[in-house]
Protein backbone atom coordinates (compact mmCIF):
# COMPACT_ATOMS: atom_id res chain seq x y z
CA UNK A 1 0.00 0.00 0.00
CA UNK A 2 1.50 3.29 -1.08
CA UNK A 3 2.15 5.77 1.69
CA UNK A 4 0.37 9.12 1.47
CA UNK A 5 2.89 11.91 2.05
CA UNK A 6 0.84 14.93 1.10
CA UNK A 7 -2.24 16.45 -0.44
CA UNK A 8 -2.77 18.37 -3.60
CA UNK A 9 -5.04 19.35 -6.43
CA UNK A 10 -5.21 17.85 -9.89
CA UNK A 11 -6.96 19.37 -12.87
CA UNK A 12 -7.32 17.54 -16.16
CA UNK A 13 -9.47 19.43 -18.61
CA UNK A 14 -12.48 20.75 -16.78
CA UNK A 15 -12.24 18.25 -13.96
CA UNK A 16 -10.52 19.45 -10.80
CA UNK A 17 -10.15 17.21 -7.76
CA UNK A 18 -8.30 16.90 -4.52
CA UNK A 19 -5.67 14.22 -4.78
CA UNK A 20 -3.36 12.29 -2.51
CA UNK A 21 0.36 12.60 -3.08
CA UNK A 22 1.82 9.14 -2.66
CA UNK A 23 5.37 8.09 -2.05
CA UNK A 24 6.78 6.27 -5.06
CA UNK A 25 8.18 2.88 -4.18
CA UNK A 26 11.67 2.88 -5.63
CA UNK A 27 13.69 -0.25 -6.25
CA UNK A 28 17.14 1.14 -6.92
CA UNK A 29 18.02 -2.02 -8.85
CA UNK A 30 15.40 -0.97 -11.40
CA UNK A 31 16.55 2.62 -11.72
CA UNK A 32 18.74 3.77 -14.59
CA UNK A 33 19.40 6.92 -16.53
CA UNK A 34 20.75 10.30 -15.61
CA UNK A 35 22.20 10.70 -12.12
CA UNK A 36 21.41 7.30 -10.64
CA UNK A 37 24.31 7.74 -8.22
CA UNK A 38 22.51 10.68 -6.64
CA UNK A 39 19.90 8.29 -5.31
CA UNK A 40 22.25 5.43 -4.47
CA UNK A 41 24.47 7.65 -2.36
CA UNK A 42 21.61 9.07 -0.38
CA UNK A 43 19.59 7.13 2.15
CA UNK A 44 15.90 6.82 1.55
CA UNK A 45 13.59 8.75 3.78
Amino acid at each position, binding site marked *: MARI*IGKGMLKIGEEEKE*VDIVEAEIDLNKV*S*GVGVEKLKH*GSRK
Partner: protein
Amino acid sequence: MPIPVIGKRSGRPDYSKPIGVDVPTPKAKGTVVKQSEYWAAGEISPGPAPGSYTAWCVGMGFSVDAEYVPKKQRFRLLKFTVSVPAYITISAGIGLEDAAGNITLLYWESGNQKITVDFSYLRSFEEGSRPVYFIINYGDVQPDFVDWSVIGVVEWLE
Protein backbone atom coordinates in the same frame (compact mmCIF):
# COMPACT_ATOMS: atom_id res chain seq x y z
CA MET B 1 48.68 47.68 -40.66
CA PRO B 2 44.91 47.45 -41.20
CA ILE B 3 43.24 44.14 -40.55
CA PRO B 4 41.67 42.85 -43.73
CA VAL B 5 37.90 42.33 -43.46
CA ILE B 6 36.55 39.43 -45.42
CA GLY B 7 33.50 40.32 -47.45
CA LYS B 8 30.10 38.71 -46.81
CA ARG B 9 30.28 36.81 -50.02
CA SER B 10 33.67 35.39 -49.10
CA GLY B 11 32.48 33.17 -46.28
CA ARG B 12 32.01 35.67 -43.46
CA PRO B 13 28.84 34.92 -41.48
CA ASP B 14 26.13 37.51 -41.93
CA TYR B 15 25.41 38.41 -38.31
CA SER B 16 22.71 40.84 -39.32
CA LYS B 17 20.36 38.02 -40.23
CA PRO B 18 18.02 36.58 -37.60
CA ILE B 19 18.88 33.07 -36.51
CA GLY B 20 16.22 30.54 -37.42
CA VAL B 21 15.23 28.17 -34.63
CA ASP B 22 13.66 24.82 -35.30
CA VAL B 23 12.37 23.09 -32.19
CA PRO B 24 12.31 19.33 -32.61
CA THR B 25 9.12 17.76 -31.37
CA PRO B 26 8.50 14.05 -30.82
CA LYS B 27 6.85 12.35 -33.75
CA ALA B 28 3.27 11.55 -32.95
CA LYS B 29 2.37 7.88 -32.77
CA GLY B 30 -1.17 8.76 -33.67
CA THR B 31 -3.31 11.67 -34.60
CA VAL B 32 -4.06 13.98 -31.72
CA VAL B 33 -7.82 14.38 -31.51
CA LYS B 34 -8.07 16.25 -28.23
CA GLN B 35 -5.85 18.08 -25.78
CA SER B 36 -6.51 18.97 -22.16
CA GLU B 37 -4.48 20.82 -19.62
CA TYR B 38 -2.91 18.79 -16.81
CA TRP B 39 -2.23 20.84 -13.75
CA ALA B 40 -1.18 19.41 -10.42
CA ALA B 41 0.09 21.10 -7.30
CA GLY B 42 0.60 19.99 -3.77
CA GLU B 43 2.55 19.88 -0.58
CA ILE B 44 4.65 17.07 0.82
CA SER B 45 5.13 17.11 4.54
CA PRO B 46 7.70 16.85 5.92
CA GLY B 47 10.41 17.28 3.32
CA PRO B 48 13.31 14.85 2.97
CA ALA B 49 15.76 14.58 5.86
CA PRO B 50 19.29 15.88 5.27
CA GLY B 51 21.12 13.62 2.85
CA SER B 52 18.04 11.78 1.68
CA TYR B 53 15.46 11.97 -1.06
CA THR B 54 11.72 11.72 -1.50
CA ALA B 55 10.04 10.32 -4.60
CA TRP B 56 6.38 10.77 -5.31
CA CYS B 57 3.50 10.30 -7.74
CA VAL B 58 0.09 11.87 -8.08
CA GLY B 59 -3.02 10.02 -6.89
CA MET B 60 -3.08 6.44 -8.13
CA GLY B 61 0.16 7.14 -9.97
CA PHE B 62 -0.77 9.42 -12.83
CA SER B 63 -4.15 10.81 -11.85
CA VAL B 64 -6.97 10.29 -9.36
CA ASP B 65 -8.01 7.02 -10.97
CA ALA B 66 -5.19 5.99 -13.33
CA GLU B 67 -1.91 4.36 -12.32
CA TYR B 68 -0.29 5.10 -15.67
CA VAL B 69 -1.01 7.22 -18.71
CA PRO B 70 -4.17 5.55 -20.07
CA LYS B 71 -4.36 3.81 -23.42
CA LYS B 72 -4.54 6.06 -26.46
CA GLN B 73 -3.33 8.99 -24.43
CA ARG B 74 -0.02 10.79 -24.07
CA PHE B 75 1.19 13.14 -21.39
CA ARG B 76 3.45 16.02 -22.29
CA LEU B 77 5.27 17.57 -19.38
CA LEU B 78 5.86 21.27 -19.71
CA LYS B 79 6.95 22.54 -16.36
CA PHE B 80 7.90 21.21 -12.95
CA THR B 81 8.63 23.38 -9.92
CA VAL B 82 9.83 22.49 -6.45
CA SER B 83 10.54 24.74 -3.50
CA VAL B 84 11.23 24.39 0.21
CA PRO B 85 10.96 26.90 3.08
CA ALA B 86 14.65 26.72 3.92
CA TYR B 87 17.73 28.04 2.19
CA ILE B 88 19.28 24.68 1.43
CA THR B 89 20.69 23.08 -1.68
CA ILE B 90 18.28 20.70 -3.34
CA SER B 91 18.08 18.70 -6.54
CA ALA B 92 14.82 18.08 -8.34
CA GLY B 93 14.49 15.22 -10.76
CA ILE B 94 12.03 13.52 -13.05
CA GLY B 95 11.91 9.87 -13.96
CA LEU B 96 9.85 7.82 -16.38
CA GLU B 97 8.41 4.67 -14.81
CA ASP B 98 6.98 1.81 -16.84
CA ALA B 99 4.39 -0.69 -15.69
CA ALA B 100 7.13 -3.12 -14.58
CA GLY B 101 8.51 -0.57 -12.12
CA ASN B 102 11.59 0.28 -14.17
CA ILE B 103 12.49 3.92 -13.79
CA THR B 104 14.58 5.86 -16.25
CA LEU B 105 15.82 9.10 -14.73
CA LEU B 106 15.43 11.83 -17.31
CA TYR B 107 16.58 15.04 -15.79
CA TRP B 108 17.99 16.70 -12.69
CA GLU B 109 18.38 20.28 -11.77
CA SER B 110 20.04 21.64 -8.64
CA GLY B 111 19.71 24.92 -6.84
CA ASN B 112 18.99 26.63 -3.58
CA GLN B 113 15.47 26.53 -2.16
CA LYS B 114 13.59 26.64 -5.47
CA ILE B 115 13.92 24.86 -8.80
CA THR B 116 11.95 25.27 -11.98
CA VAL B 117 12.32 22.76 -14.79
CA ASP B 118 10.91 23.92 -18.10
CA PHE B 119 10.69 21.28 -20.80
CA SER B 120 9.33 23.49 -23.55
CA TYR B 121 7.00 20.81 -24.83
CA LEU B 122 9.70 18.26 -25.48
CA ARG B 123 9.17 15.56 -22.89
CA SER B 124 6.35 13.10 -23.42
CA PHE B 125 5.12 10.06 -21.50
CA GLU B 126 3.39 7.45 -23.62
CA GLU B 127 0.59 5.13 -22.52
CA GLY B 128 1.59 2.66 -19.83
CA SER B 129 4.19 4.96 -18.30
CA ARG B 130 4.12 7.78 -15.76
CA PRO B 131 6.32 10.50 -14.38
CA VAL B 132 7.93 10.10 -10.96
CA TYR B 133 9.17 13.20 -9.22
CA PHE B 134 12.21 13.43 -6.93
CA ILE B 135 13.73 15.87 -4.49
CA ILE B 136 17.09 15.38 -2.80
CA ASN B 137 18.07 17.38 0.26
CA TYR B 138 21.78 18.29 0.37
CA GLY B 139 21.31 20.70 3.26
CA ASP B 140 21.69 20.18 6.97
CA VAL B 141 18.10 20.85 7.98
CA GLN B 142 14.88 19.07 7.14
CA PRO B 143 12.34 21.38 5.52
CA ASP B 144 8.89 21.34 7.09
CA PHE B 145 7.34 20.81 3.68
CA VAL B 146 7.95 20.75 -0.06
CA ASP B 147 5.77 22.75 -2.42
CA TRP B 148 5.62 21.48 -5.98
CA SER B 149 3.62 21.90 -9.15
CA VAL B 150 3.40 20.28 -12.55
CA ILE B 151 1.97 21.74 -15.72
CA GLY B 152 1.42 19.62 -18.78
CA VAL B 153 -0.93 18.54 -21.52
CA VAL B 154 -2.83 15.29 -21.91
CA GLU B 155 -3.38 14.32 -25.52
CA TRP B 156 -5.95 11.82 -26.75
CA LEU B 157 -4.74 9.89 -29.78
CA GLU B 158 -6.71 8.28 -32.55
